[in-house]
């Protein structure tokens, strides 16, 4: 009887396990009570709990008990089979397919200069990459995986981590999704600090109507331009633009519908659960994880500031001024950062509707962060 009790979860429980279970529960609580990214935080939170139940040694239950340890497929755990999609970067491109199939690029097509705000916000990614290497002595590969948190794009962060620093995948994914959920908390102070009231009151011209031909040509040409410049981003951007072509072509509506509903939902469930379950107490509760969280927060702040300041810089040359709040939406976090821009704009002027305009830098940020990931991968893979 006593022997059996030692094999139970209660018998093997350590403080580390208890802390991780508390973190998982906090994620679920945040998702349910505060409604912060519930579609991600519920699976991740539950995954953290699943991954931190202690069990007797020799049982194949963890995401890390895979076929690579000599026991073959029979010896691998169910969770490791799900984790396969994370470990080998399968899930992120599938999520991008769904995002492409649900994204309307019309506002970006109608006002293309707003795309540059999505580029400017990537400064957060690259400065954090440099900071992680310079201040905390992370290797270049690990620094790149940490820096991409500033892209505010969970799938991109997971994809790059799986390629360059798989050992940091858990903390990076958790940091990326936590900060994406905390966009409404992190961004407003930075935006307020860097803009004047007069700037926040700037109204944008209504977007022009975009023809069907423009919408159909865009995904093909955009893929060619971005993939030729950063071939490392082919998997992510290929799927993003392929999904968008399915949506806009008008002849593959059934495929587009599957990609933006059932497929993305299934992949999100599996990815969230697997990422959560990969956070083991003994590897997660380390100083390194705290550093990653700190750098991730800094990355978000720099990215937001970069976008806002670049919008102000553009205004020096433009006759038709841009509301600099839009720059904050260059941090991809679709659509949360665009919502933050809308809310901030309406706090100053309830009749100022910025949401549609903010979607342009928002989706440009997705493209920008994928290109950044592609550059990192190309430069640091060997």
């Amino acid at each position, binding site marked *: 009887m006593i022997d059996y009790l030692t094999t139970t979860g209660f018998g093997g429980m350590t403080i580390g396990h208890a802390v991780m279970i508390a973190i998982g529960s906090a994620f679920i609580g945040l998702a349910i009570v505060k409604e912060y990214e519930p579609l991600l935080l519920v699976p991740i939170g539950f995954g953290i709990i699943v991954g931190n139940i202690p069990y007797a040694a020799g049982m194949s239950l963890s995401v890390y008990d895979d076929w690579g340890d000599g026991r073959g497929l029979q010896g691998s755990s169910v969770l490791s089979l799900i984790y396969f999609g994370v470990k080998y970067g399968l899930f992120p491109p599938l999520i991008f397919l769904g995002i492409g199939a649900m994204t309307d690029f019309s506002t970006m097509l109608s006002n293309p200069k707003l795309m540059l705000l999505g*580029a400017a916000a990537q400064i957060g990614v690259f400065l954090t990459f440099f900071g992680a290497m310079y201040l905390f002595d992370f290797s270049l590969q690990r620094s*790149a995986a940490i820096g991409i948190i500033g892209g505010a794009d969970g799938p991109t962060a997971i994809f790059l981590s799986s390629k360059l620093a798989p050992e940091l995948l858990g903390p990076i994914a958790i940091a990326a999704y936590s900060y994406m959920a905390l966009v409404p908390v992190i961004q407003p102070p930075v935006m307020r600090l860097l803009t004047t009231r007069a700037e926040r009151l700037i109204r944008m011209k209504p977007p022009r109507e975009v023809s069907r031909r423009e919408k159909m040509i865009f995904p093909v040409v955009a893929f060619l331009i971005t993939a030729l410049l950063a071939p490392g981003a082919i998997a992510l951007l290929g799927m993003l633009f392929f999904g968008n072509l399915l949506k806009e*072509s008008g002849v593959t509506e059934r495929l587009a519908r599957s990609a933006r509903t059932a497929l993305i939902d299934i992949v999100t469930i599996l990815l969230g659960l697997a990422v959560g379950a990969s956070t083991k107490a003994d590897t997660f509760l380390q100083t390194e994880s705290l550093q990653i969280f700190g750098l991730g927060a800094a990355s978000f702040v720099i990215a937001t500031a970069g976008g806002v300041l670049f919008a102000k810089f553009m205004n020096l040359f433009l006759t038709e001024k841009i509301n600099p709040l839009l720059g904050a939406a260059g941090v991809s976090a679709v659509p949360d950062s665009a919502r933050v821009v809308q809310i901030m704009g309406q706090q100053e002027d309830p009749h100022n509707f910025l949401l549609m305009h903010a979607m342009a830098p928002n989706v440009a940020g997705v493209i920008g962060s994928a290109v950044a990931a592609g550059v990192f991968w190309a430069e640091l893979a060997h």
Partner: protein
Amino acid sequence: MHLTATTLRLAAFASADQVARAVEITVIGMLMVFAALALLTVFLTLLPRFLGWINAVWPERGDRHATLDAAAELLGDEDDVLAAIGFVLHVESREQP
């Protein structure tokens, strides 16, 4: 002693190399991101003009697919449509002598 100094010097060089490499990647990365999105901006700015010329030669037809989509939405699920057709055929066949 000599070995330690050499090792330290090597470490310093390696570190300087790493910093230089990080700066290089940062600059290249930002340039690539800006280049990609700036090229897209230029392309998207010129696209309506280009499509204007194309439309003069090969006008864009009415939004056939949008119409079809709207019609499909009005009709609802494919199964419902098939059920309706089946019902009509059934009624017709019963009414025939």
